[in-house]
């Protein structure tokens, strides 16, 4: 072992995952932060530059201009000075409530969610009770109960915090319950970490974006509620806030006297501050759920499709993919499928093997034009050669033609499709739905008969038609999905890892079913998987894909016996033989002799 003196590499200092927690820059975030910064600065520094807000002058209700940029109130106080002090007061209460409510919700939500059991039951019962108590009336009652002279901003803040934390606690609890079952929490427990440390170091950082969003929400809630309370005359007695300003404007009949400069500025500050916080919250939500992000799209270049749809060379061919390229148009475009050409013959099982990220699923989506932006077909053609002699240029189909084409000529079974069945609708309704959409003229009895027929084809008892998906086992659900793909008698089926999530015995049963159906019905299958041994046993021909390209293509027997590409050999070597010689799989503890990259 090399001696690693401390001088060679210094230990890191205070590095944490903050960077990944920061929101991505976007116009929304910029505007939001800008609004907040301007208002916060105004509240913070404004009072230093404006005069005394309570000085009474003999200038009641002067319109804006001259010495008083925002005019004066009924008693001649300067509105700008009042606005500056009130903004400071409102921000003060907003921050106090934000901190208090977030602490309370974190305590009840996170601790309860993590500890579980009786503590969780008690905590969530308590937060549920707090949640159903109508907030504002309680605030009014509590505020009215405290004598007006003792009602400082702290009292109001505590009252608002107590009535405002429960909803956040529920959200945090739900998220904690999900984080608690993560493997890294289990791993920390196995490492021997104490529960409080697991919460603070493993769980809490991953809740930060959520906590931030809940904090921002509490601040908005507090400023609005405080304004409401003050407007009703129940606010803090010792400080002026935007709400008290509105209260005095209301009492001074500002509206009736058309003194808009008295009530519009505080209203506007509240609205703009709330707006700024909400915009920031959008950006925080994008960290929690990256799916909300706007995908920056590059201007859509018209795909250059040099190759015309392939002409039928041979009656035997059902699908021709010619020099197909798919690019993910992101900041640095990713060429996921590069010039891939494939032909699929009638009644053939073509296996497409490759590891994660090689582009095999992208290819499957593109052939059926199910790809979504940012993925884009940048070249090549997909031609379907119909049984009745017509050639269909799939990439040129108009939307309604494409809809008719999918499922009836070419159907797809996706990875995990069995979990895509709607859990609250019976198998029969889901199967019939396909027929109602694609075969509108079909009679009810004929539909029913067809559904029973396809279920029988895949080896599921037709009596199961009335079942809900959750009443069926995983293997049975996958059979139902295959039955669904068979409903319209397609000539091509694309199967993307159809058995990966299933146990070997169930997988074996389904594979046999696919082979039997292929023999009986004669459809062609494009079978996509990472499991090369499975393809070697199942497929007629095999294409091996790596980094978006097909590196080897040939009959299964040939790929198995004489693989030509080093990558194919490497893949083959990666699967130990169950019954054969040990080969490279001697448990020597040394890296395997052929190829150190493994």
């Amino acid at each position, binding site marked *: *072992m090399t001696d*690693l003196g*401390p001088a060679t*590499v210094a*230990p*890191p200092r205070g590095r*944490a*995952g903050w960077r*990944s*927690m920061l929101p991505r820059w976007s116009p929304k975030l910029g505007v939001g932060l800008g609004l907040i910064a301007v208002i916060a600065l105004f509240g913070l520094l404004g009072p230093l530059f404006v005069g005394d807000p309570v000085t009474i002058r003999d200038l009641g209700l002067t319109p804006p201009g001259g010495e008083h940029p925002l005019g004066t109130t009924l008693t001649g106080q300067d509105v700008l000075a009042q606005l500056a002090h009130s903004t400071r007061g409102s921000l003060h209460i907003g921050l106090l409530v934000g901190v208090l409510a977030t602490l309370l919700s974190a305590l009840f939500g996170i601790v309860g969610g993590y500890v579980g059991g009786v503590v969780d039951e008690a905590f969530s019962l308590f937060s549920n009770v707090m949640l159903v108590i109508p907030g504002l009336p309680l605030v009014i009652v509590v505020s009215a109960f405290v004598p007006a002279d003792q009602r400082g901003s702290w009292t109001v803040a505590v009252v608002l915090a107590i009535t405002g934390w429960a909803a956040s606690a529920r959200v945090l609890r739900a998220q904690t319950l999900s984080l608690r079952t*993560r*493997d*890294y929490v*289990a*791993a*920390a*427990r*196995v*490492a*021997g970490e104490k529960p409080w440390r697991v919460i603070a*170091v*493993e769980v809490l*950082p*991953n809740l930060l974006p959520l906590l931030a969003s809940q904090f921002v929400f509490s601040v908005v809630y507090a400023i609005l509620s405080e304004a409401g309370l003050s407007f009703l005359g129940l606010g803090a007695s010792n400080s002026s806030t935007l709400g008290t300003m509105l209260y005095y404007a209301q009492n001074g009949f500002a509206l009736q006297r058309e003194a808009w400069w008295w009530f519009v500025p505080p209203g506007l500050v509240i609205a703009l501050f709330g707006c700024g916080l909400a915009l920031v919250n959008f950006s925080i939500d994008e960290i929690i759920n990256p799916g909300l992000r706007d995908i920056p799209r590059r201007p859509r270049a018209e795909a250059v499709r040099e190759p015309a749809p392939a002409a039928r060379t041979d009656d035997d061919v059902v699908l021709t993919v010619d020099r197909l390229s798919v690019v993910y148009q992101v900041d640095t475009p990713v060429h996921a499928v590069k010039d891939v050409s494939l032909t699929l013959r009638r009644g053939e099982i073509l296996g497409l093997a490759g*590891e994660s990220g090689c582009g095999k699923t992208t290819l499957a989506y593109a052939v059926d034009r199910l790809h979504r932006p940012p993925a884009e077909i940048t070249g090549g053609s997909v031609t379907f050669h119909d049984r009745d002699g017509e050639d269909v240029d799939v990439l040129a189909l108009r939307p309604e033609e494409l809809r008719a084409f999918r499922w009836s000529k070419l159907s797809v079974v996706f990875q995990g499709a069995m979990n895509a069945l709607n859990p609250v609708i019976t198998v029969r309704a889901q199967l019939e739905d396909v027929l109602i959409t694609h075969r509108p003229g079909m009679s009810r009895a004929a539909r029913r008969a067809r559904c029973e027929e396809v279920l029988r084809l895949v080896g599921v008892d037709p009596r199961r038609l009335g079942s809900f998906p959750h009443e069926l086992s995983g293997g049975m659900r996958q059979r139902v999905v295959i039955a669904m793909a068979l409903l319209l008698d397609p000539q091509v089926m694309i199967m993307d890892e159809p058995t990966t999530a299933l*146990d*070997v*015995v169930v*997988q*074996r049963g389904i594979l*046999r079913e696919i082979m039997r159906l292929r023999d009986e019905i004669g459809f062609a299958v494009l079978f996509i998987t*990472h499991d*090369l*041994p*499975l393809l*070697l*046993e199942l497929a007629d021909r095999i294409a091996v894909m790596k980094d978006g390209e097909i590196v080897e293509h040939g009959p*299964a027997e040939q790929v*198995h016996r004489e693989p030509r590409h080093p990558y194919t050999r*490497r*893949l083959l*070597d*990666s*699967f*130990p*033989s*169950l*019954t*054969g010689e*040990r080969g*490279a*799989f*001697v*448990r*020597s*503890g*040394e*890296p*395997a002799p052929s190829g150190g990259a*493994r």
Partner: protein
Amino acid sequence: MTTLEARRLVKDFPVRVGLRRVKLRAVDDVSFTLVPGRTVALVGESGSGKSTIARMIARLEKPSGGDIALTAPDGSRVPDRHYRDHVQMVFQDPFASLNPFHTVEHHLARPLKLHGRAAGREETWRQVLRLLERVSLPARDVVHRRPHELSGGQRQRVAIARALAPGAKVVVADEPVSMLDVSIRLGVLNLLARLQREEGLAVLYITHDLATARHFSDDVLVLYKGRVVERGPADDVILNPRHPYTKLLAAAAPNPDARGRALDVDPAEVERAGAAAAYDHTTGRWEDVRTAG
């Protein structure tokens, strides 16, 4: 050398069926011994109870019956509070078992400190780099990275280093390669084997893959419905299976050398045989599994 003996382990989970609460027996009377330098493979399909056994050994679940005894090298029983110094676990999914918020350094430094293997920053730092080198990672390159900046294989190596950090002598590997790309699986398994040889680790290898169980373990236990239905030396169990369930598993695994073959085991036969008796290849006898507790 540390030895772990699991005796007649039972685990019941309460389940609600309508309004009634019933007990579901996930693990039923399972016994085995993990000794230094040897690997025991637990083979079975999902729901067979193999992961529950792993979690009981790692003390993430409490057994409903039976016990787990850990014997220190000097022959004395290891007290509970030192259990985790000796027994550690490698989880199935390296994408889930490393905290996305923390760096690789954090993942290794914490167990080192917790188990008193390193004191002070410099010492901890040296140990972290040493651990990364033990699992054949470019230590200085990866130590500051966060999990999402590593490939699946690299993450699993970090997870293995974390399991070794407390100085564990018993390692539970729960499907350590099933989430990895096929071309890097062998490398990770060989790494485990090398560490096992160098440190005399006792390994419990949990898998659904008969082929790697055969090549990377000494003994195989086949689990069916929470019970052991066949046990013995790896080659004996896999090449000469006796229980219909083991035969079915072996027949169902993809085998490129046998294109177009039929499945010669009828799943109904497995149902009939059930899990009432277990075949032990070392004694060469069928043994009745009595229900414990």
